[in-house]
């Protein structure tokens, strides 16, 4: 592989930048709707399902759209995943897994103590959103610098 090629942005890295932006914006928008909605309203009346589904749906549409554009626009040479792409992908998945685990444990605990389903749902949702944000950010950081071997 040439020097020029390794210094440019690989297709996987470009995909990851899409993931960084969509996950970050989705999280901010969802929390931006949820938290003001919680003020002055009984928790069981706060509507979060529709905002979550809208945010998720829009993120998927925007994400897939961007992936299609990148697929068409990127040079052929960068289409193959190399070892580095695979290792970095694994780092992202590892970080994401731990977020999902934390969210799941919180949700299970809340469910056992019979907390409002609002809290159960939202620990899972926030766990998923944080998994997306942290995994994509750690991949982006790994692409731009040193990364630990997994």
């Amino acid at each position, binding site marked *: 592989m040439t020097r020029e090629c390794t210094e440019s942005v690989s297709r996987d890295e470009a995909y990851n930048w899409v993931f960084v932006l969509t996950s970050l914006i989705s999280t901010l928008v969802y929390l931006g709707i949820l938290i003001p909605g919680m003020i002055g309203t009984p928790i069981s009346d706060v509507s979060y399902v529709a905002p979550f589904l809208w945010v998720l749906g829009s993120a998927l549409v925007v994400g897939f759209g961007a992936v299609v554009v990148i697929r068409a626009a990127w040079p052929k040479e960068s289409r193959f995943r190399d070892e580095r792409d695979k290792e970095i992908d694994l780092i992202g998945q590892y970080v994401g897994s731990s977020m999902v685990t934390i969210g799941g444990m919180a949700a299970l605990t809340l469910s056992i103590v019979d907390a409002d389903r609002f809290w*159960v*749902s939202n620990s899972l949702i926030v*766990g998923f959103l944080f998994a997306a944000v942290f995994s994509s950010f750690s991949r982006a950081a790994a692409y731009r610098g040193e990364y630990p071997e*997994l």
Partner: protein
Amino acid sequence: MSTEERAAWASAVATLVVPAFYFTRVLGDARNYPVAEIDYQGLLIWNVGITIGATIALTILLTIAHAIGIHVSAEVAAAKAGRPADPDEVEREMKSLDRTDARDKAISRRGEVVSGIVLGIGAVLPLVLAMTEREQFWIAQSLYAAFILAALTGAIAKIVVYRTGLSS
């Protein structure tokens, strides 16, 4: 066989067996009583504890069995060759019993990634149940089942990688 590999086997067996008792009991109760009246909470917490305890106990048992195996096979090999067992050889084998190297770490993380993916998929059902305001009982059972499935597939993934080798 490293400690990590024995732990993977122990975890696979423990997560297959111990939660089965819990789910048989609790799902059996769910057939006969309204789910809101079932006291599953204590059973669930105990089951988590017993699963972890059984994993540790099995790992220790496998280590002991392995250590005995090393001595026995050294004696058998020595008897066949008609000479006394070589204590250095046995000592070297015993030392390798609890080594953890880079490969073990890589396999362990690979297993955790698999288990995270399974948990992510498995957590969708409890999320849907919670968003549609279903009984807390079913939310808790499906979440616990997702965790157990994740732990089980993670352990199996580690065993498979130990058997077939790491490929990135």
